[in-house]
């Protein structure tokens, strides 16, 4: 607070402040309503019978919610199966990315070996290879391995991440070197130091990476579309596409499916907002 400013200029009348705040809340609420509008319509349609959705003018509130469409989305649309697949694939990718990143980042941050800097640049170079560019050879590889329509095919190509290695290396570099020396005195080897000192001290970065990896894995579209043809291994994103193509006029069913596909990840956002924001801002490098 500057003290050389006349008090009346710094403190407007009370009603003026109230008016400013009211205007701010109004603007915030309008913006929130516009952003949530599509979500609101989706939920409303999912709870209405089809005839009501087709009525004109549309009814934008629910009087008699029809939960039946959710039940049908699970039954006719195999959404339960798709959800399980998405969870299995996303959790495996998350665990794998955290593991490979911890190992690689540890080497880059704590070990000395020839060509370390060069190798780090090579890692970062993978960020410049968009997945969309390499889909044809990658499809061929997965096909040769016999991994089409399999969990391996959905998981293995994504188990390493330069972004994660970069993020964790930065975090490891902030671990005081005294700690390493002290740990060495106490007889800790590298593995012990990694798991009991470096990773716990970097848990914020590890958390950010885990949430970010899960989000990216859950929301993948192109790759699962290419390599899954049967319900058995389809993820929920591709399942949603299948639900839309098969029931294009049953908007309540399609909207219920959309809510089901979106709900787990929105819950993740609410629970882990801080980690997610950290992950996104520290390296939306890949975008």
């Amino acid at each position, binding site marked *: *607070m*500057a003290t*050389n400013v006349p008090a009346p200029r710094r403190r407007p009348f009370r009603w003026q402040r109230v008016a400013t705040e009211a205007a701010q809340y109004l*603007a*915030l609420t309008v*913006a929130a309503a516009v*952003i*949530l509008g599509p979500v609101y319509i*989706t939920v409303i349609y999912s709870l209405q019978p089809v005839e009501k*959705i*087709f009525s004109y003018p*549309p009814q934008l509130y629910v009087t008699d919610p029809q939960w039946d469409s959710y039940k049908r989305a699970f039954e006719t649309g195999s959404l339960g199966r798709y959800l399980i697949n998405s969870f299995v694939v996303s959790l495996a990718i998350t665990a794998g990315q955290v593991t490979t*990143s911890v*190992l*690689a980042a540890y*080497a880059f*941050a704590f*070990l*000395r*070996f*020839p060509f370390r800097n060069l*190798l780090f640049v090579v*890692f970062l170079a993978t*960020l410049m*290879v968009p997945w*969309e*560019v*390499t*889909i*044809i*050879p990658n*499809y061929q*590889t997965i096909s040769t391995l016999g991994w089409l329509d399999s969990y391996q095919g959905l998981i293995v190509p*994504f*188990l*390493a991440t330069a972004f994660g290695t970069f993020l964790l290396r*930065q975090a490891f570099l*902030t671990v005081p070197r005294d700690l*390493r*020396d002290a740990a*060495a005195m106490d007889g800790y080897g590298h593995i012990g130091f990694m798991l009991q000192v470096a990773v716990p001290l970097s848990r914020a970065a590890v958390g950010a990476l885990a949430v970010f990896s899960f*989000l990216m894995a859950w*929301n993948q*579209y192109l790759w699962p579309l290419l390599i899954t043809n049967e319900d058995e291994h389809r993820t929920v*994103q*591709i399942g*949603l*596409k299948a639900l839309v193509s098969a029931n294009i006029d049953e*908007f309540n069913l*399609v*909207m219920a*499916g*959309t809510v089901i596909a979106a709900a787990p990840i*929105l819950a993740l*956002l609410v629970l882990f907002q801080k980690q997610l*924001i950290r992950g*996104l*801002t*520290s390296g*939306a490098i890949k975008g």
Partner: protein
Amino acid sequence: MRDAGLIGEASATSSLRVRTRRNARLREALFALVLLAPSIALFSTFAFYPLIKTFYLGFFRSDPFGLSASYVGFDQYIDVLGSDRFHRSLFTTGLFALFTVPTGLVLGLGLALLAHQKLRGMIIYRTIFSSTVATSVAVASVMWLTLLNPSIGIINYGLKETGFEPINWLGDPEWALPAVSLTTIWLNLGFTFIVILAGLQTIPEELHESAKVDGAGAVSRLFNVTLPMLSPTLLFSVVVLTINAFQSFGQIDLLTQGGPLDRTNVIVYSIYTEGFRNFNEGVAAAQGVALFFIVLTLTLIQFRFLERRGFYGN
């Protein structure tokens, strides 16, 4: 150089004999190799090898049935990259970036400025503004498929109520790309908001205070303090949003399948159709190579800038 390592494990043992030290170094290097092996194996298999293979596939022309391919050297690259069809696809992608990036940036900035205030309940607004970051491209596309529907869509209802002609959003060649862009802007808004708000929070409060003391009004402070200080963040967002635009696929696949009249046939969708529908692997690969160089250029701009500013480095 070698002795200036970050964690001087070797220095602790420096009093020991040279041979032991050399052994320790060798062990350390081998251990590093073990730690790096999983990542190196995966990157080689799923990034570097397929990248080289993509360049290679571009040299082979598939026969019309996609059964065999013959070596044609650079002919196919020249044919594909010089074709009208590819130029139209590139133009569509550029137009898509033009429709989505500036609008998305301005809206994201507006939301971030609104949310960058100390008001009670702000956490709720921030969560809402961030929410589309967690929305997948499939979920967003299906939502907007319904909103844009010509008969039941709420957008056409709004148009009719306010005296405008209803629009066949996804079926009209003139409107399909704007409609896909609208979906994309909404989808990206959460990300842009988060990044710009984080940028706003790094601007020191004192700058605003001293500008206030100098008698600068809110608008003047926005243009003379906030925006200049925010320019690295804004540039970063522009590059990421542009790269995103060039990599977009899901919303096209769900909303328009590249149509009508190829008006939404962006580059990745074109690669997908050539490679997986027409089985023209060579053509798809040549387009992939072009996409690689476009994204490479954009990424290098971004790295150059990240290096200079040291932004988001922690």
